[in-house]
């Protein structure tokens, strides 16, 4: 019984869908029942009964449902009222349809019971069944003509009743099934949707509270509405049709074009998807903030349906890494300072000059490339990895961008250099320019000379040289640089020999030359010296040799760098010169081509050399200082580069000194005679 009741009585809860459905059905039912008025009038007219009575009875039967329609809140209750109304209509039809067709009018009861199944409510059908049963029994007893057009027995009423029961059982089954499988299914979906939205809410809570931003992007680049709160804060809210590069471009417009072409590569579907994804930007800056960008493709049936973009703010991490690099560079700077203070100062003054030229917007083209190249080489020599790496990138960019440099790169270089300069100043203190440093032996020698009888001019000259630099100091410094380059270029340890003479050079006048001389060193090491394996294979000692010499021949000062490497491949130079449209017929023309910017016989570009820039630069400075360059090379044996300045005795920036002379001793060395040149 309990099960029967629970089958007939629906669960109390009414879903929004059911409410909406019943509201529509009830409205249709009310209209349907009102349409009975004219139909019943017509039937009464046809059957020869009273149309007026038909109209009055139908109207009376409609008062109840009309009032219920206006007042009842529960749509299921209204359906039950319509179950009652339906049977009233059946009764009225049988009543006004008296005559030969009266029995056939009973069909309408069965039609209406079947129709009541649309309410998906067994109670509406049960109500109808009870109503029609009571109606028939009552009228059979009180007014049999209203029900039967013949003298029916009580069994006729029982037969009608049985048919009503049978149909009602079937209609209840249909109504309940309709409720369970359609109306109730909606309930199940609704409850699952609610559970899902609860989970989504929880998920969203998690996503909104992690430090990463999440965005979903359509294959055409449009950003979907779904995004985590942080992502919305970083790139802005949802704008229909807005592309990811437009969102990111608002943070930093410089990379937007690049993002777009990189995204197009995905849409083009030429490259494997993972390769196209790898080519998308991994970093994005917005003012002082740097984001890392990660991409997770959502693939369905082998096709990209969406891309999840995960953004993380990595500014703090980068700052930490940068500060570690700076710390390391600073330590190297400190070591350089302890080892070779003069060398470092000179590098600084030269590099400072280079940077100030590079950041001038007027400097462009090959001149700019040359400056950047020189700065790069010098920074690498002093172990300033951050700056050297920056210059290397800059140089590559200049090659691709036709020799122009962007304002932001200039600014960046200025910033990096400024940091380095302030570090160096803090190491040096502020008085570096005001000091003259003298080593102990020189100090003692001059003191002895003052105690003795040395000529006053000679002592004055000696003191003057304190601001000069000996060739030995300079060549020793260059030798160290040469060894450093050798080990970095995988040439093993180099045998660097120095052969200085007694020449003294005024550092400020010679710094530009020495700075560009590093190009000659790099060329010798990188292009000249073979790898240890190659050397052993051709029967040379494993260690390559570089010989650095200064000497005086007559009145000519020679500065030479000679290597015992593979020598210049003149055939290759000829080929390259020809390809570059340079004269290449004679040996002189080929030597000239060697000094031409942009010509290199080197297959790859390294941090140190290989862009064919340096040789032109070093010759230009040598010539500017009144000198000339000679090159001798034998294939397989080595190359010697000789820089020569004639009339050295007339130069104010070079001195050749011997020991302090004594006026009583006559046998002075040749060098001492011509001490002031």
């Amino acid at each position, binding site marked *: 019984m309990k099960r029967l009741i629970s089958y007939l009585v629906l669960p109390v809860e009414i879903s929004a869908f059911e409410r909406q459905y019943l509201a529509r059905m009830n409205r249709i039912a009310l209209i349907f029942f009102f349409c009975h008025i004219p139909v019943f009038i017509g039937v009464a007219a046809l059957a020869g009964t009273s149309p007026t009575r038909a109209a009055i009875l139908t109207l009376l039967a409609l008062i109840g449902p009309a009032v219920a329609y206006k007042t009842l809140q529960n749509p299921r209750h209204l359906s039950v009222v319509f179950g009652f109304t339906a049977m009233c209509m059946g009764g009225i039809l049988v009543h006004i349809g008296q005559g030969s067709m009266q029995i056939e009018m009973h069909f309408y009861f069965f039609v209406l019971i079947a129709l009541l199944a649309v309410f998906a409510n067994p109670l509406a059908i049960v109500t109808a069944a009870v109503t029609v049963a009571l109606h028939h029994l009552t009228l059979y007893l009180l007014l049999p003509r209203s029900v039967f057009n013949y003298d029916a027995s009580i069994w006729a009423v029982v037969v009608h009743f049985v048919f009503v029961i049978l149909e009602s059982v079937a209609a209840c089954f249909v109504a309940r099934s309709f409720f369970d499988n359609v109306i109730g299914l909606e309930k199940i979906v609704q409850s699952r949707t609610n559970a899902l939205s609860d989970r989504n809410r929880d998920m969203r809570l998690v996503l909104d509270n992690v430090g990463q931003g999440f965005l979903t992007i359509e294959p055409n680049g449009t950003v979907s509405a779904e995004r985590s709160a942080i992502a919305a804060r970083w790139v802005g809210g949802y704008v229909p049709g807005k592309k990811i590069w437009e969102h990111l471009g608002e943070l930093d417009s410089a990379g937007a074009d690049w993002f777009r072409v990189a995204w197009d590569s995905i849409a083009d579907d030429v490259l494997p998807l993972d390769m196209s994804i790898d080519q998308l930007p991994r970093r994005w800056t917005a003012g002082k903030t740097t984001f890392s960008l990660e991409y997770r493709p959502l693939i369905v049936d082998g096709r990209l349906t969406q891309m999840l973009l995960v953004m993380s703010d990595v500014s703090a991490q980068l700052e930490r890494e940068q500060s570690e690099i700076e710390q390391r560079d600073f330590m190297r700077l400190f070591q350089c300072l302890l080892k070779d203070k003069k060398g470092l100062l000179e590098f600084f003054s030269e590099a400072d000059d280079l940077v100030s030229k590079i950041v001038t917007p007027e400097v462009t083209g090959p001149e700019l490339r040359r400056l950047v190249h020189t700065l790069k080489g010098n920074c690498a020599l002093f172990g300033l990895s951050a700056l050297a790496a920056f210059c290397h990138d800059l140089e590559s960019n200049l090659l691709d961008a036709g020799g122009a440099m962007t304002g932001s790169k200039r600014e960046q270089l200025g910033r990096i250099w400024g940091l380095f300069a302030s570090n160096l100043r803090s190491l040096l203190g502020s008085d570096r320019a005001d000091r003259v440093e003298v080593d102990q032996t020189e100090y003692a020698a001059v003191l002895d000379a003052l105690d003795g009888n040395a000529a006053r001019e000679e002592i004055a000259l000696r003191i003057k040289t304190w601001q000069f630099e000996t060739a030995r100091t300079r060549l020793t410094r260059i030798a160290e640089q040469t060894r450093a380059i050798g080990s970095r270029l995988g040439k093993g340890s180099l045998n660097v020999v120095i052969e200085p003479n007694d020449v003294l050079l005024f550092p400020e006048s010679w710094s530009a030359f020495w700075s560009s001389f590093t190009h000659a060193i790099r060329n010798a090491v990188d292009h000249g010296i073979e790898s240890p394996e190659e050397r052993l294979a051709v029967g040379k000692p494993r260690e390559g040799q570089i010989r650095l010499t200064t000497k005086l021949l007559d009145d000519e000062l020679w500065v030479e760098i000679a290597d015992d490497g593979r020598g210049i491949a003149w055939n290759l130079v000829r080929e390259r010169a020809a390809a570059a449209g340079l004269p290449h017929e004679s040996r002189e023309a080929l030597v000239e081509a060697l000094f031409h910017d942009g010509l290199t016989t080197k*297959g790859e570009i390294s941090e140190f050399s290989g862009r064919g820039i340096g040789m032109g630069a070093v010759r230009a400075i040598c010539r500017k200082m009144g000198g000339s360059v000679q090159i001798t090379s034998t294939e397989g044996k080595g190359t010697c580069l000789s820089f020569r300045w004639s009339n050295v005795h007339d130069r104010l920036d070079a001195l050749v000194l011997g020991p302090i002379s004594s006026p009583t001793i006559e046998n002075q060395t040749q060098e001492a005679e011509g001490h002031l040149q």
Partner: protein
Amino acid sequence: MAATVLVVDDSRAIRQQVGDALATAGYSILEAEDGVQGLLRISEQPDIAMVICDINMPHMNGLEMLAKLKADPSNAALPVLMLTTEGKADLIQQAKRSGAKGWIVKPFKVDQLVAAVRKIVGR
């Protein structure tokens, strides 16, 4: 028969790296150091299946080579993959307008390059 891929780059290191990887994957390789040599190789070897070409090269750069290549109707269908450095959107757009099939940013993973060649050449 193995498909032939032409690698045009002025860097010997890149040519070697790309060439070795593709040769291991079963392709036969031709190398050229610049655009002039590249066009020469293409005219000598009509059975080249695709070209991998650096943009920045001396004498004749990759874009000039591409334009000349595509201007010749007999080579217009030859797929060309350009090599470039990151951030050069305008160069890539120019290359695509000139008919480049696709582009790859240096440095790249060699196995991905091989996969790309396989996808384009189809064997």
